[in-house]
């Protein structure tokens, strides 16, 4: 008790009741979970990336060192975020900035980004490159939370009312759904044009989840949804009529790999033939497909119950491409077996439950959206990646947070974790304690 900050309400003082609000308290289990995931991730990356690092960079420690550096920066971010009350960020100006930066980055990527194998997803900063969609994922959740919170504050203040009450529901739906979705749609379109379908899917899912937990009226859903569907049909057909044949072909070509992937996956489940398919080769719609899937399954299957032992993976010696990246999980399963593989799933599951528990206890929409959004983001990424690795879904090119090499993406995940932890400290309802004093004066 001694270390508690107590807030004594004057009103209860008189009635000899002291109501204490519990102080800001960090969610320790969540913090521990984060530390475990970070360490586990670095250790597995170390093992998985040795061969790739040696072969591609002449330095076996190349990937793990860079990952470590970025993790260090990320941990500092977390530490800072922990001491800032989450409401500090709840400003509409920050939302405007975050969305502007996102759109600007995406436009920049679209125009000047680094093209690799026909996809323009990266921009170069110094000697490194990073995927802008990773920033957008973090910024999007942040923005939705800020926007929703702002709208609610405005309404509480009696603003955002129409003169004619008949139109109020329509106006509300515009504010609740149409306006924010339109802005987000711009980002989504830019991501889709890169093309980066997996990011598009994740962003869409996160957007939906955030909207679902933000307390929007059913009427708004109905009206807003109708307006958006009509607008989408109109815009789509306009575009179809205006655009030239060559543009259409280009678009079809851009997304050919998605359909090929799906096709491949269908054939793969019936027959284990070879193929290559990975994130860095979005256009390899070729005969050599499926190779990666097969190699990944072999890696996991060879692991057995206990695995070959840490560091003893064979598949990482160039058999499994992207062993340091999209397929770290497969290497972990090969080395640590079912025990290691399921432990990673369980850790992410625990992270998910922990994050949702924080969301459950949040005191306002802002905190709830942040907690749900970021928890979902990390969990969806993780589960999608694992599902790809074990061959449950076709390859998507989603990385495994904390495990996959890719320092910058990891940095943004750590920022997201920082936000969750910050919410857990300063965004949850605090216990109220009433002390009934029996002390006689």
């Amino acid at each position, binding site marked *: 008790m001694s270390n508690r900050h107590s807030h004594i309400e004057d009103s209860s003082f008189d009635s000899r009741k002291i109501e204490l609000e519990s102080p800001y308290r960090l969610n320790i289990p969540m913090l521990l979970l984060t530390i475990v995931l970070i360490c586990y991730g670095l250790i597995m990356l170390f093992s998985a990336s040795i061969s790739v690092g040696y*072969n*591609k960079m*002449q330095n076996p420690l190349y990937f793990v060192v860079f990952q470590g550096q970025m993790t260090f920066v990320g941990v500092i971010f977390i530490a800072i975020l922990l001491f800032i009350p989450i409401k500090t960020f709840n400003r509409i100006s920050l939302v405007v900035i975050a969305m502007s930066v996102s759109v600007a980055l995406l436009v920049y990527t679209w125009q000047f980004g680094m093209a*690799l194998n026909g996809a323009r997803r990266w921009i170069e900063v110094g*000697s490194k490159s990073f995927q802008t969609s990773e920033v957008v994922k973090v910024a999007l959740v942040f923005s939705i939370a800020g926007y929703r919170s702002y709208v*609610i504050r405005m309404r509480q203040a*009696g603003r955002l009312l129409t003169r004619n*009450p008949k139109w*109020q529901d329509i106006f509300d739906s515009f504010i609740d759904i149409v306006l924010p979705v339109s802005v987000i749609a711009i980002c989504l379109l830019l991501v889709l044009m890169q093309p980066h379908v997996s990011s598009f899917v994740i962003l869409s899912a996160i957007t939906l*989840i955030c909207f*679902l*937990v*933000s*307390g*929007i*009226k*059913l*009427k708004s*859903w109905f009206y807003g949804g109708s307006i958006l569907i009509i607008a989408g049909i109109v815009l789509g057909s306009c575009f179809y009529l205006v655009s030239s044949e060559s543009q259409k072909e280009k678009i079809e070509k851009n997304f050919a790999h998605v359909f090929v992937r799906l096709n491949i996956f269908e054939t793969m489940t019936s027959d284990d033939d070879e193929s290559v398919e990975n994130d860095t080769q979005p*256009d*390899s719609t070729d005969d050599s497909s499926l190779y990666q899937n097969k190699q990944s399954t*072999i890696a*996991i*299957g*060879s*692991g*057995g*119950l206990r695995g070959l032992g840490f560091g*003893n993976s*064979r598949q990482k*010696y*160039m*058999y499994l491409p992207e062993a340091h990246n999209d397929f770290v999980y497969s290497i972990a*399963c090969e080395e640590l077996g*079912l025990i290691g593989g*399921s432990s990673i*799933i*369980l850790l992410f*599951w625990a992270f*998910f*439950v922990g994050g*949702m528990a924080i*969301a*459950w206890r949040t005191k306002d*929409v802002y905190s*709830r959206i942040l907690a*749900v959004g970021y928890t*979902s983001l990390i*969990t969806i990424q993780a*589960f999608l990646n694992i*599902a790809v690795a*074990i061959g*449950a879904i076709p390859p998507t090119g989603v990385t495994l947070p904390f495990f996959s090499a890719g320092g910058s993406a990891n940095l943004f995940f750590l920022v997201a974790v920082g936000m969750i932890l910050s919410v857990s400290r300063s965004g949850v309802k605090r*216990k*109220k*304690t*009433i*002390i009934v004093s*029996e*002390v006689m004066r």
Partner: protein
Amino acid sequence: MSNIDMRNRNGSGSKIITLQNKQPTKTKPSGSSLSINGLVVVGLLLVLGTLFAGMLIYKLYDIQINHHEEYALMGSSMHWNRIKDVPLRGDILDSKGNVLAGTTYEYNIGVTPKDVKSLKDKSITTEMIAQEIASIFSLEYTEVLDNLNQKDSIYVQIAKKRPRNEIDILKTYLEENQIGGVRIDPVPKRYYVHDSFASQVIGFADQNDNTLIGQYGIEAYYNDILTGTEGYTYAETDRNQGALPYSPPTTIEKQDGLNVVLNIDPTIQAIATDACREAYEAYHPKEGVGVIVMNPYTGSVYAMVSLPDYNLNEPRSIPYAMDEETWALMSDEEKTNYLMSSVWRNRTISDTYEPGSTFKVLTTAIALEEGLTFEEEMFSDEPIEVSSLHTISCWRQKHGGNHGTETLKQAFENSCNPVFVQLAMRIGINKYYQYVRNFGFYDVTGIDLPAEGLGLFHSEPSSVDLATLSFGESSTVTPIQLANVFCALVNGGTLMKPQVVKALTDRNGDIIHEFAPVAIKTVFSENTANRVKEMMKSVVAEGTGSAGYVEGYTVAGKTSTSTIDIGEDQGMHVLSFGCYAPFDNPQIVVLVIINKPLDKELGSSAAARVAAQIISPTLEYLGVPRELTDEDYEKITIKYAIPELKGKTVAEAKQILYTNHFEVILGEEGMTDKSIVMSVYPDPSVSILYRNGSVVLYSSEIVEEAMMRQVSVPDFVGKSLTDCISIAQFAGVNIDIVGNPKGVVVSQDPQYGFVDSATPSDDGMNTESNVEDGESVFEEEGSDVSTVTPVPTSTADQNNQEDDGEADADSVISTPEPTVDLGEKQRIKVPCGAIIKLTME
């Protein structure tokens, strides 16, 4: 206030009530309506996430536990690999142990384009890397850049078969800038030390899938021995076949190839090659020149030359004596056809030809062996009608004469056909062919070289066949078959297996296997052999083979001119000369074949001359002392007139001079076979020269000696006659002997020595001129030339080939006179080809 938890918190008795507050009620804007409850969504998400996690773990369990063995097996079969360990190919050495063919490495350079970037300096662009690589390997910059920009490719080859030094530069560059993605693969490469030396005997090896495979010659015949045995390592590997350290590998050791030591003697091979080139350039025979030099007792092949030959290091480039323009106009297919049919082919073992008169040696031997004749028996050479269509007469009949009656020995010397037909008829078809079969003509000799040809002999011979074969027509042999039978004759009747390889050695040079001489059978009695040899001796001494005469050594042999009767080559001849020397103690058997020279008038003495040119230095090299008889001295000092050459082309002049036993020197640089001869020195109208004298040709009008090529006067004083001849030939001057040729030189004119600048000599010597001195490079050697054995080196060999058609090899070697010597220390000079008077006592 549902969950009230009241406890005594401390001794003072204060109670703490913990309240779980409900969600604070919100003030809804006008008119509340239903909204989606965030907590319900959170709960739903929790359920969904948990279900998904459960599904993932189930799937994981399915793969890792249920299908574990299946995947583990797939993994192992992929990880365990058999890694080849390529053995080192053995070297090919000559009989003195010098390396003729060895193995080195060259390198292929490839890149994984997307990994080619500097980890150290981001400012190094792909363009800069492409620029650097292009400059190291002298490649097209744009091409390299295109390759580096193929980002989708896993491997793009940039350069092939690059030498070590270029690779070292590349490696330094890559390491300095930490550029990745470049792969350097060593591939074995065969190198041949002396380019075209014994090219058809050695053959070449092509690189195929990281191993070298012999294509021709020794490389092909001994391919398995040279290659060795591949080793294997069975180990867990990475995808690039590099062994991993997890489990002990199973290894089968490789065995390096053995070295092959040849019987080919570098000096004799060089001598024979030079003699052949001279003949080839004089006659341009359509089917080349072939020479075999063998040891008659062991069957060892000392030298084997087949012209045209080629550079073993670049077997597909322009071969010897090929006109560059013609070559450039040929299509790739034509080139390959030409190379395969005429150049790579070892004519001395693969070509077949009508042996002609050389076969008379065998006819005579059979008759003597059977006791059907004797040397002094008298024969008539009148034409013999062997059938209604065939009448065989002596070659002299064409010229309207005949030999009348003559002894067998004379008929042998004169190469008179009807006599041998008579002998063959006496022997009879069955017996004759039984002998022929016994000599091995129906079989290959078994020489250790690939693609040995087999001559054509009648399986059911008629009397016409018998009659024509008696003087070597209508059947064909390979040169090696005939040379081998000659060996049998020389060694007293034992047919040996011809052997090119002497021994096999390991990497340390220790002998693993030595090929002992293999005697196949005895085909002559010693007595018969000796009697035939005696007759062969007189062929050179008195008969058709006089061109085979070598001063100081007795040569015995038999000439042959066989005529092509049919086909496009009708009327062309195959000139050959089979011989051995010295007569008393035979050391070598030499067979020379000049196959279809363009000049149809050319006689077999051309072949005999090549043999003489080979025998003389070879025997000297083998340490056989010269024994000059009175007759020799007489022959040596006979002088011959220089034929008229003005207005002829250099090629024609060369042929004429060669046939007349003169050495040709081209006086001016840039003269080719097509140049017209304008001046000849010494002047043919006033000068006569000894046999093998030097004649200098000029393609411009020479009016005074000062304009001529100058050479230093060698020192002859104190030298014997044969030494003087070699010195003079070497220096490019002629000699004229006064006095007793059996003695030594006491004085010479002009003198050997240095010109004193104060008292210029009035010999018309061009003392102050520092015109290019063709022979100055030999000056020092010329001064103590007594030790000079004309042993051509392989580099001369090489020059010869490269400079073919440009100028005579001797004349190309020209070095400007060192200027420091000008003035006081200027050697006394004469024009090249000048006659130096030697007084001998």
